[in-house]
C-alpha cells in the first residue's frame, strides 16, 4: 500500500478557537518540522519509488557519523528522523527542498494523524479493556482480577484473543478523518480539530486522509 505523503511535526498541546459563527472548536496545535527531502528512491537503484524526508533540523552532535555522511553528501543540514513515503512520480520533489505545508494541507480537509500513544504500563483487564470487576467490599475477595478465560476439557485450550493483562499504551496509534482548522505556513503551525495521540511534545505524522471528501 502506498502511503500518502505526510508531514512530521510535534504536538504542542490543546486549546480552542472560535469559528465565524462564534462556536468554540477544540483544537490540537501541531508545530511542523522542516520536512526537507533528503533522497529520492528510484526503481532502478532501490527497487521501488519513494521520497525520503528529514523531519527536523537538529544539532550536528545528535547524529552519528554515517547519518551525517548521508546528509552532507547532498549538502543538507543535520536532519532527524528520516521517513520514507512511497510515491509513483517524484519529479515534483527536489532534494534539499522542504515539503510545503500549505500545499499539502488545506483548511477544511480531513487528515490522518499518527503518533505514539501515552504509555500506561502493565495494566489489568479492568483498565485495559474496560472489563467488569467484582464487589470491593461486603466480604468479597474478587476485586479486580480476571474472570474465566474459557471452558474446560472442551475445547481444552484458551482461545486466541482472550483479553488479558499486559502493556497498555506506548504503541503507534492513528486517528483518522480529523478536520484541519487552520494552516499557518509561516509559523509552521497546523490546528487540527479534536485530540491526537501521544503526549505534548510527541512526534506525530499528519497525512491527508484517503476519502472522497478530499477530492
Amino acid at each position: 500500500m502506498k502511503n500518502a505523503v505526510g508531514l512530521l511535526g510535534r504536538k504542542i498541546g490543546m486549546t480552542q478557537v472560535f469559528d465565524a459563527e462564534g462556536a468554540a472548536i477544540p483544537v490540537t496545535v501541531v508545530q511542523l518540522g522542516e520536512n526537507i527531502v533528503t533522497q529520492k528512491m528510484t526503481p532502478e537503484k532501490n527497487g521501488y519509488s519513494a521520497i525520503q524526508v528529514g523531519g527536523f533540523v537538529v544539532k550536528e552532535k545528535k547524529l552519528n557519523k554515517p547519518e551525517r555522511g548521508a546528509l552532507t553528501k547532498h549538502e543538507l543540514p543535520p536532519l532527524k528522523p528520516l521517513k520514507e513515503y512511497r510515491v509513483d512520480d517524484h519529479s515534483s520533489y527536489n532534494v534539499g527542498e522542504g515539503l510545503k505545508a500549505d500545499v499539502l494541507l488545506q483548511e477544511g480537509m480531513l487528515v490522518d494523524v499518527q503518533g505514539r500513544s501515552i504509555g500506561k504500563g502493565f495494566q489489568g483487564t479492568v483498565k485495559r479493556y474496560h472489563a467488569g470487576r467484582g464487589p470491593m467490599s461486603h466480604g468479597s475477595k474478587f476485586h479486580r482480577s480476571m474472570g474465566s478465560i474459557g471452558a474446560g476439557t472442551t475445547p481444552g485450550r484458551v482461545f486466541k484473543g482472550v483479553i488479558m493483562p499486559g502493556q497498555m499504551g506506548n504503541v503507534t496509534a492513528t486517528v483518522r478523518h480529523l478536520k484541519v482548522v487552520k494552516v499557518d505556513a509561516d509559523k509552521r503551525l497546523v490546528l487540527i480539530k479534536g485530540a491526537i495521540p501521544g503526549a505534548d511534545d510527541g512526534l506525530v505524522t499528519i497525512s491527508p486522509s484517503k476519502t472522497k471528501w478530499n477530492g
Partner: protein
Amino acid sequence: MNQILKEVEAPFIKDNLPELNVGDTVKVFVKIREGGKERTQGYEGVIIKRGGSGINQTVTVRRVFQGIGIERVFLLHSPRVEKITVLRRGHVRRAKLYYLRTRTGKATRIKEKITAKKAPAQASAARQEA
C-alpha cells in the same frame, strides 16, 4: 502555558473585559440567532463561579426567573458574548457561591462591597515617592 499556544489564542482574547469577581451582579449581552437574524439579549444575575484560564475563562451566572433558578455558563472570550456590565460589586467570603442554590428570597442577598475610591492609585503613588 506554552508560548505557541498563547500565540494561537492571542487573536481571540478580549482586552476590554471588566474585572469580574464572584458575588458581582452582572448583565451579560449575548448574541443569539433567530431565523437568520442576529440580535442581542441581556441576561442578568449573580456570578457564582469563575472557571478556566486563558481563552477558556468562564463565569457561571445565576438568576431566579419565575421561581426557577437558572444558571448559565458564559465563555468570556467568545464572540457571542458581546458585552458584560457590572451592576453591583458583592462582598462574599467564598470562591464558589453554591450555597445560593439552597436558598430563596431574602436569604440570597449578597452584601455590597465597599471600596475606597482610587485607593490603589494613591497607594502606588505613595510607594513610588518613598
